[in-house]
């Protein structure tokens, strides 16, 4: 029993890696810093992914306010430093790529100034990328907490509708649970057990979503403080 095919499993490199790469072909080196564990594909293929979209999260922080690399590093450390520490070098290399892609612009710097002397601001194209990222639900998987947390914080920083992002994600999770519940009816006992494992993990995410939704007021106060 494998995850049902469809738009979710082709969305983004992470999802494609998680569900499309044959068993045995997943190595730490082949997926960079992402650590994957794969299960027997005979009944169900899934991966535990520790992943966070650094690029878009940084873009989101810039969407909340322009700043120097130093300011971004401080913001990153404040919200996401425990989840995924980033060095200055990684921040500046990401900023260079965002600049190259037209998602941010450099302001008020003299020609030849190094990246640490440039002030960065988001472009309209960059804002569109952030908005789409926030309101595109994650593929329900064993652990997407870092990504969901990042989106929630960025949405609050941008005064966006964080309740809506959580509602969208909840609907996605429930849809996935329906798929798994239906699939269990045709599965053997091993398949049922593995599907139940996924169902419980997805349910844990849902409990987090519900609790976060009820705590948005408090979180909002902290984020905008």
């Amino acid at each position, binding site marked *: 029993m494998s995850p049902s095919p469809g738009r979710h499993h082709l969305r983004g490199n992470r999802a494609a890696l998680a569900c499309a790469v044959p068993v045995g072909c997943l190595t730490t080196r082949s997926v960079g810093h992402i650590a994957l564990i794969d299960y027997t594909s005979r009944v169900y293929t899934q991966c535990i992914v520790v992943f966070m979209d650094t690029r878009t999260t940084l873009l989101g922080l810039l969407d909340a306010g322009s700043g120097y690399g130093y300011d971004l590093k401080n913001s990153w450390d404040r919200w996401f430093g425990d989840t995924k520490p980033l060095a200055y070098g990684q921040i500046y290399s990401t900023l260079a790529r965002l600049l190259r892609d037209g998602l941010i612009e450099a302001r008020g710097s003299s020609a030849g100034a190094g990246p640490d002397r440039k002030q960065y601001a988001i472009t309209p194209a960059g804002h569109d990328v952030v908005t789409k990222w926030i309101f595109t639900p994650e593929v329900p998987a064993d652990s997407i907490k870092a990504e969901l947390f990042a989106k929630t914080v960025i949405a609050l920083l941008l005064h966006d509708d964080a309740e809506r992002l959580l509602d969208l994600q909840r*609907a996605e999770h429930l849809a996935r649970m329906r798929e*798994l*519940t239906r699939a269990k009816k045709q599965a053997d006992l091993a398949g049922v057990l593995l599907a139940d494992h996924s169902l419980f993990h997805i349910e844990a995410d849902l409990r987090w979503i519900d609790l976060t939704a009820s705590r948005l007021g408090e979180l909002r106060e902290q984020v905008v403080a």
Partner: protein
Amino acid sequence: MTKQQATHSVCATGIVDADIRPGVIMSARGLEFWFGSTHALRGIDLDIRRDEMLAVMGPSGSGKSTLLHVLAGVLVPSAGSVHFDGRDITRLGEAARSTLRLREFGFVFQFGQLLPDLSAVDNVTLPLLMSGVSRKQAIVQAREILDGLGLGDQFDKLPAQMSGGQAQRVAVARALVTSPRILFADEPTGALDSLAAERTMEALTSAAKAAGAAVVIITHDPRTAAHADREVMVRDGRISSGTGLLVDDPAEDLDHPGSAL
């Protein structure tokens, strides 16, 4: 029929039902309910398809149980309508609504619903006896439905002699023995462990499907809701997300927060 066209029908009471879509067995529009100064329902619109299981989810105090009771004709809303089978049931008197609940609806609750001094078979015969079915025929039907739910060895057991899961399946049998059009379930797995909850939902889903009954299930448990065809979230007396209303074209998706006409 396009989304914009309305279907009008005039039933025996002379009430014209506007905009009832094909396949929809119950339509609620603009439901409001006040408990004293508490505004429990704040303008709910909801369609229920005749062959579906709809999960109504939401935090405690969100109004979901109140919604179920209004849909089932137990409570009369402060405003709004509930159309079922060509009638606005909110305009019926208590006696008529009571008959409707007995003949057209079935109910499963979280606990405390089986009469403790009656056996499984006798509990299941109750709604049939109240509908005028002979005791002999009622027992035959009760045994048949209990057997179909894997409770053939529990016929003469009292509720206290059964496990929680078995008792809930007897409750499901009782709710479906009259072949209701809609089964209303309020947290039917709330008091059960994971495996019993799973078995109860499997029994409820297959028995309801076999009986051709729509199911409206209130639950806070996502694994229970996962058995449903779709879900709506109720928050602060409103539908905050999910597909509340159904459209003619199944490909059209209304799945966005605060679905509206």
